[in-house]
């Protein structure tokens, strides 16, 4: 399978280890990822809170480039980028006038014909679980993982086409295939606070705290994410949460592709596990005899 790959800004910076793991997994599974040339920022949260047209034009340009190169499918690993791309495609599909307007703004034709997929859906829905299973050499047996989806991958459901906006199972099934034990928990799709942690820390941190607390209450050994910002919030801020709420959370958080890479036999040195804030070393020691670390 061949996909246009839109890493977005995060995967060049705070989520760099996500990008590395994505590419390892793609290589193993025989998925060809072709980075969209000359891509720009999707606008993230800033654009759509300032200018509606700009918020549509920014993702449209990237998608138009992908279309111009003949790609029928675009893989988007970041949940926020995914949401913006999907929204843009839906808006353009719904309005021929808008399509003309957007094409004029970006100076190229955007037909909104290509299928936009989150990287989670590329792996979990398009690749085939049997195919993935064949590559598992180091099953993560006994590892209890809370699959965390956040909001933007699942909502609004008519745009994201999530399997179930209240209890999605795509990542859970993937985790099962690589031998781990996905847990049934309640905060799968609650918001991680996104960038609210910066302007309204007491609110944002509470949201993160609640997610960690619920995962811990179900005995999660780790949390798996499919979004660089969710990852950052849940991983980097545990120390701050503990200070604010007097808790003792030390839950390793992974990008789901990192766990897959581990199960495919890669070692932690092959991707960016060392870049995580909450150490996964002891967990991996216990899990797979330290082979990962």
């Amino acid at each position, binding site marked *: 399978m061949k996909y246009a790959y839109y890493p977005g800004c995060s995967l060049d910076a705070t989520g760099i280890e996500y990008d590395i793991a994505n590419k390892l997994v793609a290589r193993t599974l025989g998925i060809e990822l072709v980075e969209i040339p000359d891509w720009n920022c999707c606008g993230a949260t800033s654009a759509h809170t300032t200018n509606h047209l700009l918020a549509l034009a920014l993702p449209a340009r990237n998608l138009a480039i992908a279309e111009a190169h003949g790609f029928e499918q675009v893989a988007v690993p970041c949940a926020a980028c995914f949401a913006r791309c999907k929204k843009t495609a839906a808006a353009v599909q719904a309005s021929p006038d808008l399509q003309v307007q957007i094409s004029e703004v970006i100076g190229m034709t955007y037909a909104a014909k290509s299928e936009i997929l989150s990287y989670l859906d590329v792996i979990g829905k398009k690749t085939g679980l049997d195919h993935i299973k064949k590559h598992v050499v180091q099953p993560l047996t006994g590892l209890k993982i809370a699959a965390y989806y956040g909001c933007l991958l699942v909502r609004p459901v008519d745009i994201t086409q999530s399997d179930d906006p209240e209890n999605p199972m795509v990542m859970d099934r993937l985790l099962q295939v690589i031998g781990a034990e996905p847990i049934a928990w309640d905060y799968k799709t609650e918001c991680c606070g996104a960038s609210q942690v910066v302007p309204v820390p007491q609110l944002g941190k509470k949201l993160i705290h609640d997610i960690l607390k619920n995962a811990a*209450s179900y005995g999660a050994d780790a949390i798996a994410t499919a979004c660089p910002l969710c990852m950052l919030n849940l991983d980097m801020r545990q120390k701050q949460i503990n200070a604010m709420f007097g808790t003792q959370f030390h839950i390793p958080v992974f990008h789901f592709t990192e766990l897959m890479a581990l199960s495919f036999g890669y070692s932690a040195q092959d991707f960016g596990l060392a870049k995580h804030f909450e150490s996964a070393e002891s967990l991996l020691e216990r899990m797979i005899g330290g082979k990962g670390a």
Partner: protein
Amino acid sequence: MRRIGVFICHCGSNIAATVDCAKVAEAARGFPGVVYSADYKYMCSEPGQEFIKAAIAQEDLNAIVVASCTPRMHELTFRKTLANGGLNPYLFEMANLREQCSWVHTDKEKATVKAIDLVKMAAAKANKNEELTSSTMPVHKKALVIGAGIAGMQAALDIADAGHQVVLVEREPTIGGKMPMLDKTFPTMDCSACISTPKMVEVAQHPNIELLAYAEVTEVKGFIGSFTVQIRQKAKYVDHDKCTGCGLCETKCPSKVPNEYDLGLGQRACIYKPFAQAVPNKPVIDPLHCRKLVDNKCGLCAKVCPTGAVNYQDAERLFTDTFGAIVMATGYDLYPWEEIYGEYGYGRFPDVITGLQFERMVNASGPTGGKLKRPSDGQEPKSVVFIKCVGSREPAKAKGYCSRACCMYTAKHAHQVLDKIPDAAVYVFYMDVRAAGKAYDEFYEATLKDGAVYLRGRVSKIYQEGSKLIVKGEDSLLGRPVQVTADLVVLATAMIPSQGSRELAQTVGFLPDLDGWYQEAHPKLRPVETPTAGVFLAGACQGPKDIPDTVAQAGAAAAKVCGLLSKSQLETNPMTARSNPAICSGCGLCVAVCPYKAIQLISLADRDRYGKRINRTVADVNHGLCQGCGACTVTCRSGAIDLQGFKNNQILEEVDALWR
């Protein structure tokens, strides 16, 4: 030669605002056969009808066109006007200028042109219309009531009290429906069982009512006045003539399963009465779980029965009966919220229950003896959250309609919690409080005074934390998210048509609406009739209802049935299909398309063109069964079948008029 009078109705401003009625009347004067035309504000009113009658006399009219609303609304009205004016009612023709013109257009000029065309077509048909006469058919003076909840029981009692025979069919082992499951009824707080169980006894003892519990209607043939109905009596495995209802078998039965009557909160034996006051007060055997019937083991109930009433060889029994009228009273079920409410846990949390489960729990004869207990650990809940509109008023997820009874029963539940557990905290999440019945709003206000906290907003999530339920929602009046820690959550789930009601409607011969509720013939003027003559509606099968409305509607349906059964014969509809045997080839295509099974092939003695005696097969229409739908006439290759009042030449005349 026809002398046609054309009457254009304004329907107030319904038509006149979009169609220039005077101009249409003027144009009509130029149509072939039209000798008189006029327009008037309300043609259906008494002065309007008098106006038509006067014109018939003065202008010597012998055919009438009224251009107004849909024939569904007033065709019958104007046919009667013709009859009163001395004309055969079938010399009447109607043009629909409202639904088919003024209501669907905005451009007055173009709408007027279309209205003129519609009237032109109607006038052309009026030129070809023929006098038709009705015949009569007998009425079987016996009613069938399907479903024996409070609606069916009330309808059966009212019809029986009027002196008519009634057969009351109920598919469950007991009659009573949902009402005896309830504890108390709003707004008077009288005991539900105390007012419903005596009715059950009255039904069982009424000399004019034949009660068939644990039975189902499997086939309906025929028509108003004469429905032939097949009923399946399910196997009870207990001979109710021998059984005394002592209950010994129930106490000895070793197999226990969840009791449907308690919605899984309690257990019952496999030879069982659904509840203590069941009618008939005699048990049946559950064939899916009884060890004797499943594995041929046990047999204890037969051993202990003092009268030898248990019969494991019992089998279902089919029989037929004939009825003049049918009352549908099939009631409702509750929306299976577990299937779609992932945010409420998909049914994973034992302490999230429905309103009906709450009723069983708070009911003195329920599984907990009236004590409020958490299903998970049996503890008394101190904090109870009620959520309204679960599945109702939620078109994106479930149903768009309001279930009408939930606002009130939730207020009642809140009151009951505060009454039984004085230190309890009660929260009600609501969208609106709809308390539009007699003494309803006062009841709601009293519940607020009791201390129930009403929070306007939806609940977005429920999850378990330890033994507690965390309920997250919104207080939209404060514009803030709220979080409540609850011991018990009660969902006011949407009413939906009872299971199997769609199939039953097909069996009886009518179609439910899009949500599956039984469609009344007219939302305002014929609320208890179905479009199928002789079939009436009672209770929640027509749409969500509370008990007072259900009982009122059941009485109305009974009155309609009594009106029908008071006649010994009915006039038939003369607008039925006729087959001309001279040109019928006997192909039988019409037999296959007839939805009413009104056509059969018969053998006709004839001579061939050499004069030799032969037998030909030809189609023959039963005019009692034929409803005049016309499916056969368009199927017939040779044009041998024609529908009276809608003959091929009459319809083609209309089509021709359009381009003339």
